[in-house]
């Protein structure tokens, strides 16, 4: 028996490890191929580097930005703005969602208004926000807020309304107060929904901040991209974009870690 078990385990481990390595290798190959085609089409003169830059030029520009210390300053500004926007908007959105879940009356009153505001393409508000709040941190946070607040509000409300009825009844007859119900039943039960909102919210915080920076700013990654484009520095635009995607990937990786930690009671997360 023991022998069979070991053999089985061996086969399984091998079968799992091999495809993973193959996926990683294929991924690297795809990336290398894209970069090679890009570089080749510029080097052979097929496309003008003025418009599309090239991997070599982008790396050189990235290096220049890093070495001069410009990039780290811009990244810091954008990350700080996005995090402030994320924390404030998510916090208020979750609280608003929980409050509305407790008051069916206000939920009904506000539902169409929330829907209307949430359907509005918020980026269109950015010029107005810049007019009101200037080109500083506040305008960026407010722009992101208009996006993220509603995401969290809608998701939290959805989760809070979907609490299992049996659990609610049992909690009540066991003597749970309204406060207990909110924090020990509704909130944890809505947590998977809230996390779905937080994942989106983090991405949208960054989006809101970047849009505001592109429209009116003198610092931040959005500013790097916009000002590079304005001076026909395509390598600078790509350098900004690459940095941005690294920041965004880091954000979601951290978020996934936190989520797996806090939602380890979810079957889908623990088995994955």
């Amino acid at each position, binding site marked *: 028996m023991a022998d069979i078990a070991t053999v089985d385990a061996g086969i399984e481990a091998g079968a799992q490890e091999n495809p993973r390595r193959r996926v990683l290798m294929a991924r690297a190959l795809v990336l290398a191929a894209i970069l090679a085609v890009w570089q080749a089409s510029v080097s052979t003169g097929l496309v003008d580097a003025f418009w599309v830059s090239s991997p070599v030029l982008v790396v050189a520009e990235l290096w220049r930005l890093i070495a001069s210390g410009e990039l780290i300053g811009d990244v810091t500004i954008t990350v700080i703005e996005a995090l402030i926007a994320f924390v404030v908007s998510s916090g208020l959105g979750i609280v608003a969602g929980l409050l509305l879940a407790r008051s069916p009356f206000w939920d009904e009153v506000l539902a169409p208004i929330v829907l209307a505001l949430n359907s509005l393409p918020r980026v269109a508000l950015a010029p107005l926000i810049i007019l009101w709040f200037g080109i500083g941190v506040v305008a960026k946070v407010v722009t992101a807020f208009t996006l993220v607040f509603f995401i969290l509000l809608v998701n939290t409300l959805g989760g809070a309304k979907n609490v*299992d009825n*049996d*659990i609610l*009844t*049992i*909690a*009540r*007859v*066991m*003597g*749970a*107060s309204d406060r*207990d119900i909110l924090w*020990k*039943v509704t909130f*944890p*039960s809505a*947590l998977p929904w809230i996390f779905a909102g937080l994942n989106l919210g983090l991405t949208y915080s960054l989006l809101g901040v970047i849009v505001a920076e592109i429209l009116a700013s003198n610092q931040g990654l959005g500013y790097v991209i916009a000002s590079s484009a304005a001076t026909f520095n395509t390598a600078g635009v790509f350098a900004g974009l690459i940095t941005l995607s690294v920041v965004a990937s880091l954000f979601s990786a951290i978020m996934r870690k936190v989520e797996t930690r806090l939602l*380890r*009671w*979810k*079957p889908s997360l623990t088995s994955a």
Partner: protein
Amino acid sequence: MPDVSTIAPRAKIRLDDVGIVFRPRDREPVVACRDVTFEVPEGSIVTIVGPSGCGKSTLLNIVSGLMPPSRGTVEVDGRRVDGIRHDVGYMFARDGMMPWRTAIQNVEFGLEVRGVANRREIARDWLRKVGLDKFDGHYRHELSQGMRQRVAVARTFAIEPNILLMDEPFGALDSQTRLLLQELFLEVWEKNRRTVLFVTHDLHEAIFLSDVVIVSTNRPGRVKSIVPINLPRPRLPPAELAVAPEFRDIYSRIWTDLKDEVRKFE
């Protein structure tokens, strides 16, 4: 041991002329039950059996105060029920486990909201009594349906409820697991003999557990007959009891009453 029927202990739960009418919006009102009068003596298990939809579960909701009766009164300990009672242990066919809490945290919940200090010990003790001491850290999705229902039993007893309301608590289990849990339930119940109002449509279960079986009519549910179950306690295991002649007499008596009602429903 004195005979239950001769000394007539005081009523723990008393329903007097209870009627329930549901008034759904835009539809005809539905009379779920009417003229329901019975008592549950202190320390006994009384089971209501009846066809589906005869308002059995609703009666439990009324005793717990989750819902007011449309007419009549319900008393617990001689006092009228007029709001959610917090001294009730409630069990459903669905386990009602909180999936974000481990088994032991689920058992602790009731103690936690009551501010009991040594809740961890009490919960551990109850998990041991239901045979789950090794599964304290498991989440709901890591437990079988039978284990979840054991957690529900532990959770229900851990708060030492004044009365127990059981709404087909073993109804969702496979038949072997159900027998095991019925036995477990009685074993646990024997230790402190709380007053139990039980609802089921499993006649074996009703007879095995109860001191009194109340047969309900088809909707609108009324009390058709009240059958005392004079089998000695502690009861034999369900499988052995089922072949005893006394058991079969009681079974056929209740089934005769119930059969007509179920047939009307068909």
